[in-house]
């Protein structure tokens, strides 16, 4: 279980040693083990920064993260991140990119190829093990990013707008594939996204952020039945789905107009 406890963070602009520009203000929430939570909000609301705080890449100015009671001080092997720009090493083949995480987690050399291949299979890219990233399409690259994360068998998966760099149709296919993949496993997922539809479709719970400074506006429980990937078109056309979307959009619209107008 992830506990975010009164996290505040900001940065000091270059040249101005005194003032701090606030990015996150007093963020607190909890994520139950095994649940899928989305962090949704406009640009500048600090959700990306928050994800990195949870991972341990950033130490917040105030507050802390606790995972199963232990305070997070730096990245650890029980969690893995998937990035919007894929961040694959261009000089490694697909299979070697997947092994990258295993290497850094000190998994014994003998075990790495098998685990990497298994992850590769899970994302459906068995034939592309010896390709280089520049030979793959955007969607394929992200699958590799996902495989890299999954190969390390993390209890917690942190995803930073993972489908943001893909075109809309591929994006929706990837959402389906993600759900299919995660169905069989019990992992805790925290996903950062811009897309209302994506948040509703994928998550159990959506935490909605406002910007300037980043703070929680509200939390919405998504009460749609699982598995959702089999009947995706039905679900997306359902009135419940549409109602959620309306609700969230109103909230965000207000927030955006408020900040744009101000």
């Amino acid at each position, binding site marked *: 279980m992830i506990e975010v406890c009164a996290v505040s963070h900001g940065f000091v602009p270059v040249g101005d040693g005194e003032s701090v520009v606030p990015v996150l203000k007093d963020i607190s929430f909890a994520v139950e083990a095994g649940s899928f939570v989305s962090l949704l909000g406009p640009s500048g609301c600090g959700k990306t920064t928050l994800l990195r705080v949870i991972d341990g890449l950033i130490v917040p100015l105030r507050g802390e993260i606790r995972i199963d009671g232990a305070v997070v001080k730096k*990245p650890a092997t029980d969690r893995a991140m998937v990035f919007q720009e894929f961040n694959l090493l261009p000089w490694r083949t697909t299979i070697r990119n997947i092994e990258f995480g295993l290497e850094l987690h000190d998994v014994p050399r003998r075990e790495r190829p098998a685990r990497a291949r298994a992850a590769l299979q899970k994302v459906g890219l068995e034939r592309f093990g010896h390709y280089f990233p520049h030979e793959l399409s955007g969607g394929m690259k992200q699958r590799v990013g996902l495989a890299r994360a999954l190969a390390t068998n993390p209890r917690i998966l942190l995803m930073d707008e993972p489908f943001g760099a893909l075109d809309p149709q591929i994006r929706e296919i990837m959402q389906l594939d993600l759900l299919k993949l995660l169905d069989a496993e019990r992992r805790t997922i925290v996903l950062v996204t811009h897309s209302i539809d994506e948040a509703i479709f994928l998550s159990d719970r959506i935490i909605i952020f406002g910007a300037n400074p980043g703070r929680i506006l509200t939390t919405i429980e998504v009460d749609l039945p699982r598995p959702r990937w089999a009947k995706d078109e039905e679900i997306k056309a359902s009135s419940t789905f549409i109602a959620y979307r309306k609700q969230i959009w109103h909230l965000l619209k207000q927030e955006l107009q408020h900040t744009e107008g101000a």
Partner: protein
Amino acid sequence: MTETVKLDVGMGLARPSSHSVFLRIWRSHRAAISRLAAFVVFFGTWEWSVESGLISPLFLSSPSEIVLRLYQVFADGSIWQHIEASGATAFWGFVLSVGVGVPVGVAMGRSPLLRDTLEPFIMAIYASPSVAFLPLLIIWLGIGLASKVALAFVGGVFVIIVNTEAGVSSIDRRLVETARSFTATEAEVLFKIVLPAAMPFILAGMRLAIGRVLIMVVVAELFASTAGLGYLIYQAGALYDTAQLFVGVVIIATAGIVLNVFLRWLERRVAPWRRAERLSG
């Protein structure tokens, strides 16, 4: 029965097979033919201008004389001691340049403070005529291999430092962040991200350094040498043995070309993705 249209692979157009052989040869080997023609024109003009007396043989040898002399020095084996002498200097000078230049470049690339501190000194020495250091090096290290290797080192190391630093500081920070998110230590970041990412730049630096090292080897043999290709060149010049002079020049130039080609090949092998990056934009 379906008709098959014969396509000319190079042009993508249907072509009647009655076109002349020569035209076909030309089209498929354009680059090679024009290069060959340029060669012939260049060497032909050179040969003629010396043979006809337009240029005094005191100052320029004809290609045929040079080839003849090349054959002679290799046939009687007299050239090997000079190749070995210059080769040893070049080898050690280059190895030291890389051994010192890469770590310094990496350190400067990773630490802005170090870079800002060292940069003015490095730029100053980089821009100075290295020849000026030779007398100083002779006083410190004598006239043997050491002072020559030192001068070759000075010639090559700064190119490598500059290129390595550029490579290291231009790496995608997101990759470093990714490695950190997978719990990488500083050492792991260095060896798994920084060095592989900077490798194309490092190789480019090495390619440039080879040229400078070779030049410095010749310069170092200007004074107090008893063997080496540079020594051969200077001696031949003093004694107006122009064919010998050009033999030395040709051998050094050939070495430079061969090493350059090799390193370019290495660059391509190590970094195929960079060409794709540049092509796809």
